[in-house]
């Protein structure tokens, strides 16, 4: 039996994902996510004993030599940030500690 997501569950999941939801989104998402999980619950019926999970389809070798190579400049990256500070070489963010 699939899990039924309550409005409180939706708020808890949204908090884990740092998503702000509007008051009308919460009940709507609770119903929609419950329906999607109920549908996905079909996978529970499958016998997977002895089957290893298949996390990746890659056939490439991910290894490479660890050599220095040019990359994007710090300024180019800071220029894209909402509050990049070229002078300081930093991304600025609002207060992290305290209130």
């Amino acid at each position: 039996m699939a899990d039924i997501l309550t409005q409180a569950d939706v708020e808890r999941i949204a908090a884990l994902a740092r998503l702000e939801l509007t008051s009308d989104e919460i009940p709507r998402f609770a119903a929609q996510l419950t329906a999607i999980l109920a549908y996905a619950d079909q996978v529970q019926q499958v016998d997977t004993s002895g089957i290893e999970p298949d996390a990746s389809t890659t056939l490439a070798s991910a290894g490479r030599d660890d050599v220095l190579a040019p990359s994007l400049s710090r300024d180019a990256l800071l220029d894209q940030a909402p509050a990049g500070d070229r002078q300081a070489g930093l991304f600025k963010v609002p207060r992290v500690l305290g209130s």
Partner: protein
Amino acid sequence: VTLPSSACEIRADVAARRISAVEVCRAALAAIAARDTSLHAFLHVDEQGALARAAELDRNPPPDAPLLGVPVALKDNICTAGVRTTAGSRVLENYIPPYSASVVERLTAAGAVIVGKTNCDEFAMGSSTEHSAFGPTRNPWDESRAPGGSSGGSAVAVAARMVPLSLGSETGGSIRQPSALCGVLGLKPTYGRVSRFGLIAFGSSLDQIGPFARSARDMAVLMRVLAGRDARDSTSADAEVPDYETRLDGDLAGLRVGIPRALLGDGVEAAVRDAFERGIAELQQAGAATREIDLPHAALAIPVYYLVANAEASSNLARFDGVRYGTRVDAPSVIEMYYRTRARFGAEVKRRIMIGTFVLSAGYYEAYYLKAQKVRALIRQDYDRAFADVDLVALPTTPTTAFTLGERLDDPLQMYLSDVFTAAANLAGLPAISVPVGVSPGRLPIGLQLTGRAFDEETLLRAAHAIESRLPLPTP
């Protein structure tokens, strides 16, 4: 001057100086101007950049450039240095990438002219292009209908003859599904065939960039340009890239095509079924032998896909936090800034991030995510078994023709089911193509899908070429 419509003709005419790259570029821009006010395939048309690039190609044409002067459109989740790249999201509405995707560099080296960026569902999450933050794209066959998605803009740009070629991306069918609904060819290459460096990530074990075209020959030329190992994408494979174009001979003698008939259930429209059988008959006429096969776990592709893809999406989209790129909504503390910035995601993206977060959370990981990965292994084993006896697997690309705008917007599950025949290839990492096989009585296009062995895009293109030489591409 009569403008050629195929990429191969454009290349030949520009190389022979029968026409200039600038003339070709102007024609593409004029076609966009004429059609795109109503269709909305493009989010950004780079008129100045494209014309300057075309003029440069006329001044200094690179020798033997396979796409010399060919106008190409790119889905807006493919990064273009200095050209706004939004992925259809408010979160990236002002994002100007400092670098280009590897596929953009390859296109440029091949002599292509990039004319603009096409509309898509936000972060490629959707099957109709209606989840774009910038409004939907319309289907050129019937403007009250969706073009499919998520690469709907790229499908429409080719179907409405604005450009001969475009690129989209796939995670669960986002190239093949819109190509079928718009009446053009769409190819999802093997996982690892085309570099994803510079593709804005959605589901990293599934994502792949691929082409739209109006002929197998044009697609073959483009695939040769796109395919190959790229050191900047550690998942890209070092496999040989054949000269696909020279292999298109229309003869399918000896080819074995498997049809998993058990999957063609009640949800498949009669018109789709008829067109599919017509396509199969043409494959037989071209020399292919068909037989029934069984893919016992393929019907589980959609539930597995939505568990796996959303888990990966929830991780990949964590980076959009208002710190390093994109937009920021200011707040007194950093935590509130995250919440408010991420409130700008659209409803579908929020739903998927939440599904993914939930299935990866403590207590649910094994029951949902790990279980889905095991069923994924079974789906892949089904194909391995099938490919011992056949060379290709044939199915309709989609169960229905193009649906009406708005029809599935409030019913996410119904929307997901438009990918019921496409998602398995992504889960198994296999290449798959959609080829037009006619139109419904109501004049909506229908696609036949062929799935092949890993890295065997050649056989897909050969079969697509054989079909199209017998069933000419329908025109809206």
